């Protein structure tokens, strides 16, 4: 007859420990923190519950892989995932979970899924720079995919009003958070693409929403939405949350904007910049015209010189002075016209009047050119007997033939 084995207490606890450690090694456990204490030793003692049942747990200092977890993040009720093994504390005969890793469930789980999807889409080449379409310089028809009541749409409208009111915005409204949001966003994008093909060609899509919690922004980390954006034939800008928030949609879109306001800013030219560019250009053109006028003054000078040589000295001086006065008046006219007139239309009229090259004719000069050429004859050397020339006066022109050329 075999006697039944009688355990000592120590023996039983050791046996239980070995059994539990074999059966429940390296497992994940989900629960809510019920109690959290950091001992002076640096070890942390806590307990987990799922509402019906509770278990003691410990996290030993120094044995752990570094966890990003901070004590202040751990409040009673925090949902956590812990990794470790089940064991028995033999001196007390109490079983407990020894955790090597503790992380909050919400953010951590989202973050893990985010990284996994990002890696997957990246390996498929969906983020490749050569896939990125350039944005239009002057967008005309712009689809905005966001909530019709959110701050994002309001911000986008404000920027377009200020910088580029030439555009037309088409709102494709969608939920931007909650379970339905990813599907609605993808459907709105597909609807915009159909609209672009069937109704009005769109040259830009802005998809996004304003700031919120990680869970609020999670719709933009949806795989199906990411794939819809990646095949969108229209240049697409993703603008989700604030500067610090990155979404999967940011990586697949052609451009990531840090906020909806920034999205509107990077996609629009500024009308004030265009106007100042126009002013600069008009000024440069006016300078250019002045230079051409100065050249022409030299031409006229050369053209008139033979005549003035024949005249008495005082007459020469008078003529030369008159010409200078004339040119100075033209220049002053341009400068005054430029400074005085506010609008480009006025500038056109005033400048043309002031810079009319035929004005010297009105003062009694004439211009001689070979027949059919606008280039004035500047020297007797250009003429030979028998050449036909045309002389322009203020009120008409005469054609004549050169009889004789005399050099002086």
């Amino acid at each position, binding site marked *: 007859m075999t006697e039944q084995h009688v355990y000592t207490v120590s023996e039983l606890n050791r046996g239980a420990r070995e059994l539990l450690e074999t059966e429940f090694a390296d497992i994940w456990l989900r629960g809510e923190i019920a109690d959290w204490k950091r001992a002076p030793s640096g070890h942390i003692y806590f307990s987990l519950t799922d509402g019906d049942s509770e278990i003691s747990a410990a996290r030993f200092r120094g044995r752990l892989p570094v966890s990003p977890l901070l004590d202040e993040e751990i409040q009673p009720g925090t949902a956590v995932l812990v990794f470790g093994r089940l064991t028995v504390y033999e001196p007390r005969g109490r079983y407990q979970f020894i955790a090597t890793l503790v992380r909050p469930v919400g953010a951590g789980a989202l973050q893990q899924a985010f990284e996994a999807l990002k890696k997957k889409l990246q390996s498929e080449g969906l983020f490749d720079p050569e896939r990125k379409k350039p944005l239009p310089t002057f967008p005309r028809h712009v689809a905005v995919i966001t909530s019709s009541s959110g701050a994002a749409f309001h911000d986008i*409208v404000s920027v377009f009003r200020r910088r580029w009111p030439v555009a037309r915005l088409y709102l*494709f409204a969608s939920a931007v958070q909650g379970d339905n949001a990813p599907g609605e966003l993808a459907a709105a994008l597909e609807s915009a693409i159909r609209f672009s093909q069937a109704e009005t060609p769109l040259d830009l899509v802005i998809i996004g929403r304003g700031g919120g919690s990680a869970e609020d922004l999670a719709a933009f980390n949806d795989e199906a939405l990411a794939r819809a954006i990646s095949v969108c034939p229209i240049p697409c800008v993703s603008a989700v949350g604030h500067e610090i928030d990155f979404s999967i949609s940011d990586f697949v879109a052609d451009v990531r904007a840090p906020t909806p306001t920034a999205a509107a800013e990077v996609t629009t030219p500024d009308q004030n910049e*265009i106007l100042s560019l126009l002013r600069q250009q*008009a000024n440069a053109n006016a300078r250019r015209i002045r230079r051409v006028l100065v*050249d022409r003054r030299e031409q006229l000078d050369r053209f008139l010189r033979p005549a003035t040589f024949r005249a008495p000295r005082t007459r020469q001086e008078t003529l030369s002075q008159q010409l200078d006065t004339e040119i100075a008046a033209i220049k002053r006219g341009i400068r005054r016209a430029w400074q005085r007139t506010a609008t480009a239309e006025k500038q056109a009229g005033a400048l043309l009047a002031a810079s009319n090259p035929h004005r010297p004719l009105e003062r009694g000069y004439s211009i001689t050119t070979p027949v059919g050429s606008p280039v004035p004859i500047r020297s007797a050397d250009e003429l030979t007997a028998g050449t036909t020339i045309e002389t322009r006066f203020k009120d008409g022109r005469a054609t004549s033939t050169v009889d004789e050329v005399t050099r002086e």
Partner: protein
Amino acid sequence: MTIEETLAKLQDVTAKLDRDDVPLEEAIGLFEQGLTLAASVKEQLEAAKLRIEQVLEETKGTFSLDVFDAS
């Protein structure tokens, strides 16, 4: 002409005006053309008022547009 086209034209006119051999008569013509183009851009910008429509796809491929009141 759209603003984009007008600006491109203006660029063209300026480039021509910038050539060294441009005769005075042509230069003045170009200058005038430039001012007219600039005035047209300015006019278009001043007249522009942002239009906002909310698009609904009633059945697939059939769209209705409503003016969106964003005030």
